[in-house]
């Protein structure tokens, strides 16, 4: 029973992660110096 509840809890926990992926082309990102170090990735 406990294991069952744990399993159910684990399953519920998986439900609690909402993930949004926001993508931007390389030329939209500067890691410093005002340069787009990944401009070639787009």
């Amino acid at each position, binding site marked *: 029973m406990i294991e069952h509840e744990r399993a159910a809890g684990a399953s519920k926990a998986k439900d609690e992660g909402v993930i949004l992926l*926001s993508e931007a082309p390389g030329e939209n990102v500067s*890691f*410093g110096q005002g340069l787009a170090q990944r401009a070639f990735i787009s």
Partner: protein
Amino acid sequence: MPVAKIHVLEGQYNEAWLGKVSSAIQNGLISALGIPPEDFFQIIHIFPRGQFRHTPSFLGLNYSDDLIVLEITFISGRPKQKRLGLLKALNDGVVAAAGISPDDLLITLYETPGENISFGRGLAQRVHISDKDPKATYADHHGRGERND
């Protein structure tokens, strides 16, 4: 409509310093994108150390506690060279105004079509500007100036 989100480490900066950073970012947007001065939206997030984590170095760049993580969202369609120019203008301006290392400014630009933005009243005031119509200009719809949202 640029909306700038400015993320910094708690205790690192005072109000006067944040004011300089804020002005430098807005001035960079005005000079590089040609937005009107009143097109001004900024959110400043100040995080305790445990919630503001980053590597000390990456890609040959060195980061200190001065690091500013800057996210800017605006309507899509501006050419690549203009966006590259914006990154440089923002770095030059913030570094000069705040006295930080040029390494300590991480910028990400997010673009979204006009129909995804409401300036209020639940309306998408720039719905006519989208990826499918990259040549649309502010003047096309307002009869003056170049696109400046």
